[in-house]
Each structure stands twice: as structure tokens, then as C-alpha cells.
């Protein structure tokens, strides 16, 4: 997709949906839209009905006081992909589960729960998936520490 096509797509998606707002610049070649946490499920349902039939990726990024939830939606009919993002406060880490819309979220949300400790409300089977059930902590959080972790020297 060219930047112009992407800008047009963003405008088309956000024009019909007051809940969505374009978030970040397009310099790295991806269309990104943000949404309030409370409106994530309704927005995702709208987007699915608008043709985004595939949930490609669910992941999170630890930004100290908040987690950024990142969803990559993809549409074959529009031949387009967008990133949907929402912010989750660290001390109140929950978000609506999208399993009802895309079963693809079933395992991917379990993975984010496992590694980040973010709860997905409405997930039918929210358990650890990669780590053992008795594991303590969520290793992809930046404040996770383990004596077995070896710090590499700083190069700069």
C-alpha cells in the first residue's frame, strides 16, 4: 500500500466511526488507529463487519505506567491491514476479549496473559500457555527480574 492509499483508508475507516482516531504517523508504512479501552470490543466488531475478517496478531508493549495492546487486523476484500491499539493502565490491567469475534484470539490472548499478566474479560479459557502453571511473574514486563537473567554489558 502506498502512503496515499493508506491515508485514504484511514480516513474512510475513521470517518464512519467516531470511536476511532488515527494515532501515529505512517512513516513506517502501517496504518494505526487508537481506541479507548472501554470501546475496544464494539470498535473491533464494527471493523470486523466492515470487512476486516482476520485477526492476524495480538501482542502488547510495556510502556512503564501503561501497556499498549496491539492488534493487527487484516481484510482480504479491502486488501488492507491496520493496527488497532488501546492503552491499559498497569495497576488495572484488563481489556475485553475478542475471542467472540475471532477465535484466532483464543491462544494469542492467553499468550499475552501469560507473559504480560493482562486479563482478558470474557475469555473462555484464560490460563498460562507457554510457561508452567506454577510460574511466578510475567516475564515480558519490563520490571520482571530473575536472578538467572544475565545482563549484557552496555555498549553505549
Amino acid at each position, binding site marked *: 500500500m502506498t502512503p496515499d492509499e493508506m491515508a485514504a483508508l484511514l480516513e474512510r475507516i475513521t470517518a464512519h466511526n467516531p470511536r476511532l482516531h488515527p494515532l501515529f504517523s505512517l512513516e*513506517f*508504512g502501517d496504518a494505526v488507529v487508537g481506541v479507548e479501552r472501554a470501546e475496544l470490543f464494539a470498535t473491533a466488531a464494527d471493523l470486523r463487519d466492515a470487512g476486516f475478517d*482476520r485477526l492476524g496478531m495480538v*501482542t502488547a*508493549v510495556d510502556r512503564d505506567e501503561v501497556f499498549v495492546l496491539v492488534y493487527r487486523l487484516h481484510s482480504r476484500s479491502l*486488501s488492507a491491514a491496520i493496527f488497532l491499539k488501546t492503552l491499559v493502565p498497569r495497576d488495572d490491567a484488563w481489556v475485553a476479549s475478542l475471542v467472540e469475534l475471532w477465535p484466532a484470539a*483464543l491462544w494469542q490472548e492467553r499468550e499475552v496473559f501469560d507473559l504480560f499478566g493482562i486479563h482478558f474479560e470474557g475469555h473462555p479459557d484464560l490460563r498460562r500457555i507457554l510457561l508452567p502453571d506454577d510460574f511466578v511473574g510475567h516475564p515480558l514486563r519490563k520490571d520482571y527480574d530473575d536472578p538467572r537473567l544475565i545482563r549484557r554489558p552496555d555498549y553505549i
Partner: protein
Amino acid sequence: MAVSVESRNLVSAPDGGSREELVVNVGPSHPSTHGVGRVIVHLDGDIVVKAEPVIGYLHRGIEKMAENRTYLQVVPLTDRLDYVGSMYANWAYCRAVERLAGIAVPERAEYLRVIVCELQRIASHMMGIGASAADTGAFTFFIYAFDQRERIIELFERLCGARLTYNYVRPGGVSFDAPQGWTQDVLAFTKAFRAAAADLDRLFFGNVIARGRMKGIGVLSADDAVAWGASGPTARASGVNWDLRKHDPYSVYPRMDFDVVVGERGDAYDRGRCRLLECVESCRIIDQAISQMHPGPVRTEGLPRLLQPRPGEAYDHIESARGSLGVYLVSDGSVRPYRMHVRSPAFCNLALLPLLAEGHTLSDLVVVLGSLDPVFGEVDR
């Protein structure tokens, strides 16, 4: 495969009576030699009522390790994701880094990447269908398929010195140019492989026992394939015409003339045969890439060893042997990635196992698992 009985439970049956449900533990061992996986199976007689994959036995925390290494040091880590298709993870990661840091790649390097990745597709598919054939008892086919894979591994060894973990694709290019005579040998291989592929097709997919074991087993509908995020041959066998090389073209693929192999029924047979037919298409791509390739540099000159991209994030994906392999990179402006996430096609495809295995016998569960072609290094990361 280690199979042990965990428990016998009496559960109420729909007719008001009760029946015995047998809980069987399969693994953790090498189910279909793809890696260490485990499935807890609930059986009613010989029929699977519920299959629950248990994963994570190969979890090494590669995404966490990447946060503690420089951008260049992460490349060998990506080798260890899908260890029967290391070139893909190398490439997907490097594409994300190149996007993030704005690095241009010389044309010859792009061609070499296409050639090695198509060779890797053949090697990976030979492993995938060979191993799943061995599970169904067709050991002869396994040896024939591995023979073809071995020839590719030897070509890779000559190219970069490694047989399994290549560390070949690097940000800004590839590590080595093709040695003298290498491209001719690749052409000789694709020529020989086309003939071998016809034999393999007859030997296994034309075999009445193999057809009986695989046809109608683990049927995946096109709607389910899309909703569950399946990709690669797993989705295409169900009639979902989706191939990133064609539909989100990257590198020099737009210059290649090839067909996307699409199945009809979405059963284990179609998934396996799609893989074999894809290999022949890969041969077409390799031949074209070699004829289009010109001498030139294979690395961008003047790249610092300590890459320090500006803050931002990038996502890029390629069509691996298992499906859409994506890498999501976040930079905070330092010399190490702030966050790396690998969108693993094997992970998403394996999530389909409970859906596909239900209602089949325990012996068919192995066929279904093999037909999804999971590599647990990439599932568990």
C-alpha cells in the same frame, strides 16, 4: 510416541445413562518429530471427544532475550525459532529492522534471499510431509523426502557453512555471495527435483493406503481458516487463496511468474499435497530468480555494527513454509530492540488442533497434527 492412560472418568451421556471417558496423555515427546509437544486427549472408546494441546516445552523466551541484545545479535536467535526453516525468521526479522532503520538492500541480495527462501520452502515441506507420512507408517516416503531435503541442506552448507541455523540473511543484505558454481548446482537441483516431485506424488499421494488415512480427516472450512487466523498451506488447502508473495508482494516476488496452489476440501490430504505442489512452484521461482540475477554487491556498505534506529515501531511479514510469519519491532532509540514479537504461523495453526481432531480416532489425531506441520521451536519461541 509415549501414550499413557491418565484417568478413567464416568461422564453422563446424552441418553441419560453414563459412559466411560478415557483421558490419555500423548507425549511430551516428538509427536511427528516436529518438536516437543503434548496433547491431552479425552476419548470415548476410540473417538476423540476433546483434544487439548499443551505447549511451552520449548519456550526459551526468545522475545525477552532479544530485548537484551543488539539488533545484529538477534539474528542468530531468530534461527532458533523455526529450526527447519531458519531462513524465513532471519528474513522476516531483517525486513522489520530494515524498515525501522531505513536500510536499502542491494538487488542481488534480494534475489539471493528469494532463492534461499524458496529452497528452504522445499526443504521444510519435505520435512513436513515426510514426517507426517512416517507417522502413518509410510517410512519409505520419509526417506525419499529426506533425500531431497539433504541436497538442499548441502547447498546451504556450501553457501553459508551451516546446515540448520544459517544466520545468513542480515540487516542490509546477506552474509555471503553465492560461491562459484553454486547457482548452476541449484539449477541442477530444481531440474532433478521436478522429476522427483512427480515420483513423490505417485508414491505417497497416489497410494491407496495413504489416501485412506488422510482423505476426509481433519476437514477445515474456509470460514474457520480465516476466523482462526490460519495461514500458509493450512489455509490454502481449504480454498483460501492467500499468499503474501502474491497478495502483499515483497522483495522481488512481483517479477516472478508463479501460481498459488489452492486446495478444495481442506482435509489432511489436501494440506499435504498442497505442500508438495508448492515445492514445484518454488522451483519455478528459483529458476527465474537465477536467470534475472546480476553480479553486484550483496551487502549495503557502510552500515554500523551497532544499529541504532530512531524511536518507532515496524511490522513486516513474509510467507514462510508455515504461513504468514511476522515480526513486530519497537525501538526506543537505543542499540537494543525495546520489544520484539514474532507472529508465529505455527502457533496460530496449531490452535486449530482441538477443532480438527474432534470426532476422529486417536490414530487420526496424529495425521491431523502432522498435516498442520507445526514446528515447536516456533510455536513456543
